[in-house]
């Protein structure tokens, strides 16, 4: 009995401390407010095997912040970039999101992978944090209507799948094998492709299969594609699996067209698959090199980092501009006002002049089909 009582007293003591902790936290916040600092959270894969997708976003955020700070900042506040690594892993994304929320960040650029973004969004939603991804293309993120705080500067997977299937039809494919990597992104894309192929009277799904990422080899699934009589392959997933499958297909003498998504439209794919990459089609964001801000962003990146920008750099640059512009137009970091500004105010970005629809997708942003020719992705005319 005595033990129980002491436990109750102990619990009460802890609660008292917790309450004290909360109130002192609020005081601290009030003190910090005049520091005139606007923190832009940047979350994504900054290490691990998908780091090449996430790091360019950090660079983009830094460049945009430096530009805006040189012009006097947003509403007189200096913009500070605060990066959090999630390695594209959902469990690490929630950690990153919690960290950003607990540091009172109001706008977040990220995350990079769809699975990680989905995991983090619940936390942002509860904390009323606006989150904008340069690369998470999983359709339900916007279409489900569950995340009014989510925006993206890239078109969703079904936009990509529609184009992919249309292109497959143009190539004259009738019997398509649809393969995916069982991930949120790859499987989502593959299911849309399957749906659109089945909807087409002239086309037929020969095979629909998922492969295990990281398996020792994919020869069995390649044999199955071969045996299914498919005249083309659509793959949903990322470049490590794509390069293994293409290499294995070509080595087995299976020379049918290989079409994939923007997870494969990465130079690492060409580097790894080498000669076998030649002729592979991949959809990716439309060529935007004619836009004025595009060349500005490119020059800045070259000057600052001495190299060509990586994947999703321009989408990230656009997202950073859109977020900071919305805060400026809203006059504060108030959640409702910022969301309203994102939906109504146009902003000039490297992707063109954009605003967001009510679901959070950027208007006027789209995809093109690319093909590997002489070791480089070349955009094909639509």
């Amino acid at each position, binding site marked *: 009995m005595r033990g129980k009582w002491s436990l109750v007293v102990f619990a009460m003591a802890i609660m008292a401390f917790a309450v004290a902790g909360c109130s002192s936290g609020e005081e601290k916040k009030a003190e910090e407010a005049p520091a005139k600092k606007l923190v832009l959270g940047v979350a994504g894969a900054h290490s691990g095997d998908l780091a090449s997708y996430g790091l360019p976003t950090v660079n983009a955020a830094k460049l945009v912040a430096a530009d805006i700070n040189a012009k006097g900042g947003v509403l007189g506040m200096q913009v500070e970039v605060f990066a959090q690594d999630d390695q594209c892993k959902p469990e690490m994304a929630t950690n990153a999101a919690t960290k950003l929320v607990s540091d009172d960040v109001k706008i977040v650029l990220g995350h990079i992978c769809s699975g990680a973004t989905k995991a983090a969004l619940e936390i942002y939603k509860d904390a009323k944090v606006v989150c904008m991804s340069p690369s998470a293309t999983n359709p339900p993120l916007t279409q489900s209507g569950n995340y009014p705080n989510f925006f993206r500067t890239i078109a969703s997977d079904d936009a990509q799948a529609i184009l992919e299937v249309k292109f497959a039809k143009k190539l004259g494919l009738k019997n398509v094998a649809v393969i995916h990597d069982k991930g949120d992104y790859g499987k989502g894309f593959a299911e849309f492709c399957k749906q659109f192929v089945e909807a087409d009277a002239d086309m037929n799904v020969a095979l629909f299969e998922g492969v*295990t990422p990281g398996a020792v*080899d994919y*020869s*069995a699934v390649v044999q*199955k594609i071969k*045996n299914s009589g498919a005249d083309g392959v659509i793959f949903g997933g990322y470049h490590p699996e794509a390069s293994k499958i293409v290499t294995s297909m070509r*080595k087995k003498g299976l020379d049918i067209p290989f079409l994939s998504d923007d997870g494969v439209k990465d130079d690492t794919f060409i580097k*790894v698959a080498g000669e076998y990459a030649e002729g592979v089609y991949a959809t990716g964001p439309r060529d935007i090199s004619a836009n004025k801000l595009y060349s500005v962003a490119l020059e800045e990146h070259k000057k600052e980092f001495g190299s060509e920008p990586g994947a999703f750099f321009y989408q990230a640059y656009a997202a950073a501009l859109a977020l900071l512009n919305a805060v400026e137009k809203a006059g504060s970091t108030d959640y409702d006002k910022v969301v309203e500004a994102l939906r109504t105010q146009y902003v000039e970005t490297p992707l063109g002049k954009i605003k967001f629809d009510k679901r959070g997708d950027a208007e006027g942003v789209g995809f093109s089909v690319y093909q590997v020719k002489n070791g480089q992705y070349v955009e094909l005319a639509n």
Partner: protein
Amino acid sequence: MNSRGQAAACPLIVYGNRIGTLMEYFLELFFGGLTRGSIYALIALGYTMVYGIIELINFAHGEIYMIGAFTGLIVAGVLGALGFPGFAILVLAVIVAVIYSAAYGFTIEKIAYKPLRGAPRLSPLISAIGMSIFLQNYVMLAQTSDFLPFPSLIPEFKIPGLTGIITSSEVVIVAVTVVVCVALTLFIKYGKLGKAMRATAQNRKMAQLVGISVNTVISATFVIGSSLAAVGGVLIASHIGQINYYIGFIAGIKAFTAAVLGGIGSIPGAMLGALILGLTEAFATGYVSSDYEDVFAFALLVLILIFRPAGIMGKQPTQKV
């Protein structure tokens, strides 16, 4: 009559063709599974040998395989730049990878396991997991986290009658594995060190009493196991054409499964287990769906362990009193 005869013959030909393609498909899957099984076997042998001698599951073994592949890549890069022919590069890359990985295996045992030899069984196990994480991150930081292209070192040649069914690299992988397995079996059975290993596995204290240097035997076990993994690493990297720091993890898990399936501690068991696992995965993919590849593999493991808890060829443990 004539036309009827033709009509009757037609379905027969179609049927014959169908059997032909079915047979071809079966063979393709079979050879694919055989290749996979061979790689699993090369890694599984290391697990099972170490377990047989010191009853430790060496979780860093998958990383030895990965280090072997990386060493192979570096050697291949250097020799390729010097203009060596393909086959010579393969042989040299395998030799250097074997030496390098063997050195790693030897060192890991001395650093991470030997000081814990008298400790409770859980301690060296944790030490092994730590070693695995350390090696992965070491390679990631020292090399890169990106995937790297691995040159195909195994020359292309046609196999008469089986073109399109089995590729030259699959033939080489299976052949090398068979040679290695036979050599290892002979060595364990007739070699002096092999006999010492068997003695140590049976009873370490007794082996010590009859004058076997147990430390040497344990080191030799790690060296041999690591060498086999390195051979597997170079061959499979050359076969699939890419590596990164993480390849050892899944390969290691699968090889460990194979070792348990065959009966951990038993050398022929590991070979058999790896073969069964590779073939099961290939046929599950081919005839059911690759979505369920792992489901079939692990369901088989569960089934076998229900009926034979020590694995297919494992000795049923005798209670020591």
